[in-house]
C-alpha cells in the first residue's frame, strides 16, 4: 500500500514534465519522421509517399546548394568564434585589473537577441554593401554571429584557463619557456575539455543558423546565404511543402548528430 502511494507521488511530481515532453518533444520527433514521409499540405489531403521527399531532395538544386552554403558558414564561423573567444579569454587572464568591467562589456551582446544583432548590423554594414555581395555575405553573417556569441565561449574558456595548474605555469616560466611554449604545452592541454565543449556547441549551433539570415539577407543575394535551417522555414512557409520541410529538418537533425559523434570520436582519439 505504501509502495503504491510512493509510486503515485513520484508520478505526480513527474507528470507536468512528462506531459510536456511527450506532447512537444517526443511526439514531434516521431512526427518529424512521419511528416517527411508524406506530401502533407496545409488544409489539403495528404498521403503516404514513402521516401519520395528524400529522393527528390537529393536531386533538388536548392536543397543541395543550401547544404554547401551551411557548410561554408560553419567553416567560417567556428574558427572565427573559437579564435576570438580564446584570444579574449587569454587577454582577460593577462590583464589583472578591471576584469569585471571588461567581462561585462564583452559578454553584453550575448544577453541580447540575434534578431536585435541582425537589425543593428544590417544598418552598420549598409554602407559597405557586403550583404549584397554573394562572396561577402557568409563572412559578414559569421562576423555578426561571432560578435553576438563569443562572450559565452569566452566565459567557458576563461574558466578553463583558471583551472590550469598554476604551479606548472610558474615552473615553465622559471625554466625560461616562452609565452608560446607555455600556451602550447601547459595551457592548451589543460584547456582541452573546455575547448572541445566550445567547438561542439558552436558547430552544432552554426549548422542551425537562422535568425540573422532571416533578418539580414532573407537567404540572398541569389541564395548565397540560403542555409539549411532557412530552407526548412522557406519550404514550409513560402511553398507550403510541409513534407519536404520536415525532410530537410530530419536531414539537419542527422547532420547535427553525425557531427557531434564525429567530434566526440576525434576528441577521444587524440589525447
Amino acid at each position, binding site marked *: 500500500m505504501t509502495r503504491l502511494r510512493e509510486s503515485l*507521488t*513520484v508520478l505526480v*511530481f*513527474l507528470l*507536468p*514534465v*512528462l506531459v*510536456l*515532453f511527450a506532447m*512537444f*518533444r*517526443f*511526439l*514531434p*520527433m516521431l*512526427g*518529424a519522421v512521419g*511528416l517527411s514521409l508524406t506530401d502533407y499540405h496545409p488544409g489539403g489531403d495528404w498521403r503516404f509517399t514513402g521516401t519520395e521527399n528524400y529522393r527528390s531532395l537529393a536531386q533538388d538544386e536548392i536543397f543541395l546548394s543550401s547544404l554547401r552554403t551551411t557548410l561554408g558558414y560553419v567553416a567560417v564561423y567556428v574558427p572565427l568564434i573559437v579564435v576570438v573567444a580564446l584570444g*579574449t579569454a587569454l*587577454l582577460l587572464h593577462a*590583464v589583472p*585589473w578591471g576584469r*569585471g568591467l*571588461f*567581462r*561585462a*562589456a564583452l*559578454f*553584453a551582446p550575448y*544577453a*541580447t*537577441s*540575434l*534578431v*536585435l*544583432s*541582425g*537589425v*543593428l548590423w544590417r*544598418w552598420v554594414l549598409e554602407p559597405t554593401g557586403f550583404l549584397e555581395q554573394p562572396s561577402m555575405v557568409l563572412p559578414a553573417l559569421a562576423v555578426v554571429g561571432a*560578435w553576438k556569441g563569443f562572450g559565452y565561449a569566452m*566565459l*567557458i574558456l*576563461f*574558466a578553463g584557463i583558471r583551472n590550469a595548474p598554476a604551479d606548472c605555469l610558474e615552473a615553465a616560466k622559471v625554466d625560461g619557456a616562452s609565452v608560446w611554449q607555455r600556451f602550447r604545452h601547459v595551457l592548451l592541454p589543460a584547456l582541452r575539455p573546455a575547448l572541445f*565543449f566550445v567547438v561542439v556547441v558552436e558547430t552544432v549551433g552554426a549548422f*542551425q543558423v*537562422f535568425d540573422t539570415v*532571416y533578418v539580414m539577407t532573407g537567404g540572398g543575394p541569389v541564395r548565397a546565404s540560403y542555409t539549411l535551417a532557412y530552407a*526548412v*522555414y522557406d519550404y*514550409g*512557409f513560402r511553398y507550403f511543402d*510541409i513534407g519536404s*520541410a*520536415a525532410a530537410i*529538418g530530419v536531414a*539537419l*537533425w542527422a547532420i*547535427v548528430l553525425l557531427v557531434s559523434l564525429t567530434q566526440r570520436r576525434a576528441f577521444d582519439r587524440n589525447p
Partner: protein
Amino acid sequence: MRRAWPAVLLSLTSLVAIGPFVLMLLVALSPGNAPTIPYRLPSSLTLDNIIRVLSTESFLRWTANTVVYSVVSAVAVLLSASMAAYVFARKRFAGRDVLLWSLLSTMMVPFHALLMPSLVVIAQLGWSDTYWGLIIPTLANAQAVLLLRQFIRALPDEVFDAARVDGAGDWRMYLSIVLPLCRPVLATLGVFVFLWHWNDFLWPLVVARSDRMRTLTVGLSTLESGHLTIAELMSVATITGVPCLLVFVVLQRHLTSTISFTGSGR
C-alpha cells in the same frame, strides 16, 4: 614592468562589443531625423522617438506579449522542472535513469527538425495563434531539469534524513527544503529562461499569424527602414534590447559564474 598591449587589445575588443549598442542608443535619442550618426554626434538628446514608438498600439501589444511569454514561461519552467528534478535526484523508481536520459537526449535535436510537427500538434489542439500555443510547447526544458537535478543531488543527505525522521512527506520536502535551498539556482535559471524567451525568435515567428500575437523580436524583424525613420527603428531596437542588457548588468556576476561552472545558459 607589465606590457600594456593586452589591456589595449582588450579595451578595443570591448569597444567593438558594445559599439553597436552605443550607436543604437545615440540614434534613438537623436532629435528629429538628423542623419548625424555615425559621422557627427547629435547636439542634443531627446526621448521623442522612444515615446512616439511606445505610443503606437501594435508596439505596446508586442511588448506586452513578450513580457507575458517571458515571465509566464520562466515561472512555469521553474515549477515543473524543479518538481521533476526533485524525484530524479532524491527518489528511486523503475526506469529513472532511462527516463532522465531520454529527456536529456532531446537537447540534441535541432528545433528546426521539430518545427513542422510541433505546428501540426498546436493546430490539432486548436492553439494556433494563441498564448497557449506560444507558451506551452516551450516549457519542455531539459536543461532546466538537468541543472536543478545536479543541484538537488548535491544537497546534504542529512537535511532530507532529518526531515524524514520528523515525518515529512514528499510535498513537505519539496516545499520546505528543496525550494528554499534551491533559491539561488532557481533565481539564476529563472533569469536565463526569461532571457531565452525574451530573445526567442523562430517559435513566436511561426506561431503568431496575426500582428496582435507578435513578440518584440518578431515585430522588430518585420520593420523595414523604409517604413519608418532610422531613429524610430533604433528606438524599437532599444526597447527590445535594453531590458536584457539591464537584467544582465545587474546580475552579471551570478549569470557568468553559472555559465563558467555548468556551461548552461545556451
